[in-house]
């Protein structure tokens, strides 16, 4: 069983049907994959959907489908928040707030973070297993 945490960037790329999100399809189609999504991604992706002109109803349908592909929704709690500080402090580049929380979720769950956000690349492999879309 391989555990993946899908970042908002990977979820959006998949929802938009972008070519490199075929990797997301592959992972979802593999019955050996366990899919995790950080609760924060529902707000980020939902906000983008609304911003693009989708209605609240349409946005909620999208978020329901995100929930359907997930084995687990990882909630940001105190432990995750504290872990995010540690990751931020040890990142080679400045790690945005949302990124630090999502990376902490992946770290806490021992999952590989699938994303398309260059900021995650500043986190060492010892602290975060990750794969950037389009680099496989």
């Amino acid at each position, binding site marked *: 069983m391989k555990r993946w945490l899908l970042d*908002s*960037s990977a979820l*959006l*790329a*998949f*929802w*938009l*049907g*972008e070519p490199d*999100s075929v990797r997301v*399809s592959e992972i*979802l*189609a593999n*019955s050996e994959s366990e*899919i995790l999504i950080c609760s924060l991604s529902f707000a*980020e992706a939902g906000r*983008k*959907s609304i911003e*693009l*002109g*989708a209605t609240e109803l349409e946005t909620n349908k*999208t978020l329901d*489908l*995100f929930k*359907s*592909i997930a084995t687990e929704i990882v909630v940001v709690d105190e432990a995750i928040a504290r872990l995010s500080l540690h990751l931020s402090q040890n990142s080679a580049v*400045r790690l*945005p*707030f*949302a*990124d630090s929380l999502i990376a902490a979720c992946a770290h806490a769950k021992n999952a590989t973070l699938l994303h*398309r*956000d*260059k*900021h995650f690349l500043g986190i060492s492999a010892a602290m975060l297993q990750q794969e950037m879309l389009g680099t496989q």
Partner: protein
Amino acid sequence: MNTRVTVTIPENFALPAELMLASGFTAGSEMECVFEQGQICLRVPSARVSAARQLFGMGRHLSAGRDVVAELVTERASDG
């Protein structure tokens, strides 16, 4: 379970009731058909695969050439 079905008209055949019941197929169900080594295998797609099929490209018509993911990455950096 082992049973025979007859193809009535091209691209159309009936599944016996006991197979429908055992497999969970209902009228209108989506099924995956795989032909391998002389055998046809019918599978009920998992809920995850069905949801993924609906999700893929669902928002494409809204993006109108915008690089939405790049926007997200930029906004994250400026938000904090």
